[in-house]
């Protein structure tokens, strides 16, 4: 049930975007929020892996001219994905608990 770091970030990014989440906007969102560069190759791999685990679902948009007549692939988080995120978070919080003196308060 546990998902990895970049996987979590992607799932959260898609949730933040609500509508219009596709590779380009997801990457932009993650870079904006984390301030770190996200490699395209890694992003596509993660998207594919999350989809195969059933945490993301996708649908094809309609083609647009600025994309050379190619469609977008929009993603949304499935209930399973939300569940996985929650359980990851719980695990993390469990691990953090009791370390407030060292790490500060969990916000």
């Amino acid at each position, binding site marked *: 049930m546990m998902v990895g770091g970049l996987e979590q970030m992607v799932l959260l990014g898609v949730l933040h975007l609500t509508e219009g989440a*596709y*590779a*380009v906007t997801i990457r932009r969102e993650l870079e904006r929020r984390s301030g770190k560069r996200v490699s395209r190759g890694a992003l*596509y791999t993660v998207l*594919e892996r999350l989809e195969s685990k059933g945490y993301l679902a996708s649908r094809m948009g309609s083609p*647009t001219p600025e*994309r050379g007549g*190619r*469609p977008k692939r929009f993603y949304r988080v499935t209930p399973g994905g939300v569940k996985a995120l929650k359980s990851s978070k719980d695990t993390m919080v469990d691990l953090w608990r009791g370390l407030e003196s060292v790490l500060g308060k969990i916000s």
Partner: protein
Amino acid sequence: MRELVEACLARLLPAGARGEAILGDLTEELGERPFWYGVHGLRIAVRLTFFRRRRKVKKEGDRMSAFLRDLKLGFRAVTASPTSTAIVVLTLGLGIGANTAVFSLVDALVLRPFPIPDIDRLVMLWGTVPAQGEDRDRASPGDFLDWKEQSTVFESLVALEWWDVNLSGTGEPERLQGTFVAPDTLETLGVEPHLGRTLSADAEEFGARTVVLSYQLFQRRFGGDPAVVGETIRLDGEQYEIVGVARQGFDYPYGSELWAPLWLDAKTAARRDTHYLDVIGKLRPGVSREDAQAELDVITARLQKEHRVTNNGRGLQAVALARAVIDQGSPAILAVWQATTVFVLLIACVNVANLLLARGADRQKELSLQQALGARRSIIVRQLLTENLLLSVAGAAFAIPLAWVGIDFLRNGLPPEVQRFVVGWQEINLDLRVLGFTAAVTVVTTLVFGLAPALRASRTDLTAALREGGRGGSESRSRQKGRTLLVVGEVALALMLLVASGLLIRGMLRLANGDQGYDPDGLMTFEIALPERKYEEPEKRRQFYRTVTEGVREIPGVIAADLAIVLPSSGNNYTRSVDVEGQTIPNVSERPLAHFRVITPGYFETMRIPLLAGRAFGSEDREDTAPVAIVSRKFAERSWRGADPTGKRFRDSDEGPWLTVVGVSGDVLQDWFLQEPQPTYYVPFEQRPRVGMSLAIRTVGEPEAVTAAVRSQVRRADPDQPIFHARTMRQLISERIHGLKYAALVMSVLGFIGLVLSAVGVYGLMMHSVSRRTHEIGVRVALGAESGDVLRLALGQALTITFAGVAIGLVLAYAAGRLMASNLFGVVRLEAATFVSLAVVLGAVSLLAAYIPARRALSVDPAVALRAE
């Protein structure tokens, strides 16, 4: 370019909607920057492929193979330094691509010139007359029939005769290239009919007028209508029945468009004094060419005894057909090209080796760390080799489109009328053999230039490397020396290539614009070939040509018009052995040769060839007056050594009349590869009327402007008679040196590639050395070095390299020039100006390439440089 990249990515990315969406994303973000579009696309494709592959492997419960891991690591390493990777791929691509393109040419033209079944059993029989330096003479009908009858080594022995034929009757009269063939010729050459049949071997056919068309002629002139088989056409004014169409692509010899039976009547069949047959034999299975040669030697020895007058000194050589059909000049030129491309590849490999060495040096620390952590040396070497393999595969992949373009360039570089004389031209293509060759070159390149740096990089002294690498100082002296030497070699090779191409271009220009012995400007030329049967009567020939020349002289814009049997630079020639009175040499084959020309009286004036002594021909030289001749200065000097030649006599056959010399003309350059004017003699057309003549017309204004008017004058004289090969004299000269021009063009492209590659080499080395010495430069600047000092420091090394490279290159170029001068018929002369100017160009380019990294050294900020450590 975009389309190509897109197409490649579409293949690499997951198929279907998923890949489409990724391409869309890339277009949206990077559509404006195709390079990055490609780079990122490729990275995504590779990551996804590995991801999918790993998932699959995991599912199968297998571990990812070591090779794939190496590949993945390799890919990371390769893309981590995109500049040097791009340089390596570009360099290898150019080197391998140029090599593949030229090898395709060599393969098609030399290694297997045309697709004829059992070509290894076909031999061409050439007459040899050692005393005259002749080794590829044609055969006389009498000799041919004797060889055929007396030899036992051949399955079939056949003969071909050149046939310039006029096609008339339907549409505009046209002059075609045809061939008379002896029985069995087409079968021996493996021709299958596309339609109808080929010529049958029975004697009846060989008395009849039948003809086989080439597929090309069938399409062009008859619209590909199968109904033409059985029809008759008018050739040279006679009716011929079309019995068949040859298979597509067959046009032997020399772009032949039709084939008719070679008819040797009893009188012709006995002749041994005229040599016009190309003889081809098909060896019986198991008989070698040497066996055939031995038997032919016996037969020719016998014929020499039996026919002393005509056959004395005449031998015979059997040459493999595949070798015989190759143009005499082309192997030399092709060899020069192949050598050149090998050098280009060598330069490319040096570049790659250098970059790999530099890379190895840069990664010394990383590699030592790996070793320190326990990685076996074999693993590191394997890892580095995989990386190199990736690089060379990328280079080879890039080379294929380049080779494709190159082959296209080579194929279209020659005009069609020249191409048809180059056997095998149609066969030039990028095929599997050539690709195999490329692959082999790639593997060799990788092994040779990847292994050494790999071994070297892995054999580091751990402590020293870690210490040295940690300090980031300049790399060890010996290593840098090795790389410097490589670049020096590269510069030297590039200069050699440049000079070689420069010399060829200079030689070509000299041939095109040099003194020809006449005035080639404002001259228009045509050729006319009257059918021999229709114009059997000499008087009819005189009549026809008189009407034509008189008519042409009336055309506005024409100053003068005259006839000659062949014109300079036309590619044709007539040569006779001459017998000078008082110096008779009994054996015909030992007599000196001279060019033979039949002309009309005003020819020298029309051509503006100076008359040095005596008189020109005039109306007083007629059929019924004494036979006369005008000799060229060379002829006069050779035969009479300074004595006044007028009034002297010579003859060009033992039965013929003595010709009295009435004048001496200036020398004329007939053909570039003869290097200099040859002894020539001229006789008046009225005394020796020929069927085939060329028309030279001196015009005011544009020479081509008279073409239509000339055609109508010829039609007036004989409506069935075509006129062909309409060219200005300048065009003739330029066409004559097409091959050379082409060679020079290809050479200069290769030379340019060499120049670019060596500049890249210098750039790469300097870039690397500047970046390695950032720390040192920073210290120097901090200690007060001026920008001039820094520049001197950075450029000093480049100067040394350039000077050393140029010096060695000049020596190599001199050797190459000597070699070319001896192989290319004196086209190439060693000219100091070419050497010097190209050395200056190369030096300038090389210093410019070094200047860019040197500027970077200037911008080093000491504070940053020192902190960076």
